[in-house]
């Protein structure tokens, strides 16, 4: 049985079972939370910036399906060292590429939740938007 060849590639399963940067930061520059009500996926992310607005550390916690949690874990690894401009430039295709598997249209929201959370968090931090929490179903 070769389920792994498809959506649950070893990598995703590994990140799901052993999430990287899981937990919270002592003194985050900003924290933001988002959900995908339809699926019940939840991601909360802490981000720490240096003086040049480059991400120095990041941590997340959450609840939900493998795609949402593994993509958050994978994203945190890539975020470190990124400037907020680079975060702004992330898009849906980056997330899907990063996961490295085919994502059915029904699950795209699971795959992009973590990206939206960090982007909205960064926007709020810079005063660009005013938002309590991200809700993917609103978009």
């Amino acid at each position: 049985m070769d389920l792994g060849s498809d959506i649950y590639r070893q990598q995703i399963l590994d990140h799901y079972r052993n999430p990287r940067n899981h937990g919270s930061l002592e003194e985050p520059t900003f924290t933001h939370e988002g959900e995908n009500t339809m699926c019940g996926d939840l991601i909360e992310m802490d981000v720490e910036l240096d003086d040049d607005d480059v991400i120095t550390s990041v941590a997340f916690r959450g609840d939900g399906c493998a795609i949402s949690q593994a993509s958050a874990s994978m994203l945190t690894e890539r975020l470190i060292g990124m400037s907020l401009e680079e975060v702004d430039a992330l898009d849906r295709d980056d997330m899907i590429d990063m996961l490295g598997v085919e994502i059915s249209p029904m699950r795209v929201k699971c795959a992009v939740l973590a990206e939206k959370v960090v982007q909205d968090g960064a926007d709020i931090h810079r005063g660009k938007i005013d938002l309590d929490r991200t809700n993917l179903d609103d978009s």
Partner: protein
Amino acid sequence: MGVTGSALLDVDRIRRDFPVLERRLGDDRPLVYLDNSATSLTPSPVVDAMATYYNEYNANVHRGLHQLSQEASIAYEDAHDAVAEFIGADGREEVIFTKNTTESLNLVAYSWGLEHLGPGDEVVITEMEHHAALVTWQQIARRTGATLRYIGLTDDGRLDMSSASERIGDDTAVVSAVHVSNTLGTVNPVDDLVDMAHEHDAIAVIDGAQAVPMRPVDVGSMDADFYAFSGHKMLGPTGIGVLYGKEELLQRLEPFLYGGSMIEKVTFDESRWNELPWKFEAGTPPIAEGIGLHRAVDYLESIGMDRIQRHEEALVSYALERFDALDDVEVYGPRDPATRGGLLAFNLETVHPHDLAQVMNDFAVAIRAGDHCTQPLHDRLDITASARASFYVYNQPSDIDVLIDGIDAARELFIA
């Protein structure tokens, strides 16, 4: 025969897609179907598309995770895109699938009307409205205390635009008008009506049930706020209608029907709504019907709506010419084929339209007789009923010849 051949479609080829045209009726005569304004026939590709859904990917939509549901969801959502493009809407957010034109208009009257209308507000409609708009606005006006006002007609069955200017004013909250009258055939100047509504900050609701099947329609350039039509009149299946609405209006509008899949989050105490267009599609939608409608749109586009319009005009023109030669027939509506849709309501002196339809049936000619859901218009014309012949892509000049033969036979039978 007085018909410009080049204006006509390749009817022989089209007819092969409509198995029902092989029916022989009565005295073994081939069916001549001239009841298209009531409902169009349905080509095999549309019937097949629905059978394929049932036989290959029968599932509920709303993004279930299993393969069949994914396929059905994508097909159903694609249908919205196809319809949006067909009518010049900005995207699927502006295209709500309902069950028919009637529900589409009720949706607007209930959701928009109950919230925005009150005593002092005026609802302006036309004397040629179909009951779907007329009765609905009449009743919603009654409930809200709003006043219903009618735009009158000219003697040749067009909208009286000076009456329109009088009726549409600062108290007008909504102007609701039929695009093509299903009785008079009149093509109304909807662009002007929309402009007049907007000048007075009213919304414009257009009933396109007879227009979308017959001619190119672009809701965007028309600038209508809402536009309603039915699948079954445009080669699609029964059980599906469309309501186009401007996105920013739909965003602000309260939902109409409540239930599954139109919500985003529900608790025991309150609910939040889903994104467009799903906010207005409660419960399991017409899935097979949406897929069938998509196929119908493809079929119409493969012919070309411009060419369909010319075909209709050529048939109406020929029919008017033949009717003109009969001096005991009264035809209602404008004379100029370029300003009317492909349908003709008429009366034969001395023969009641019901009797005429019955004699026609002996000739295997299907026409409609009755009030065509425009009773007040019939009162206005001072008749109780009329006969109506309406044409579509598979009709040909010889169908009109059979119609005229039937009229001649009925006259003979009843007057002899």
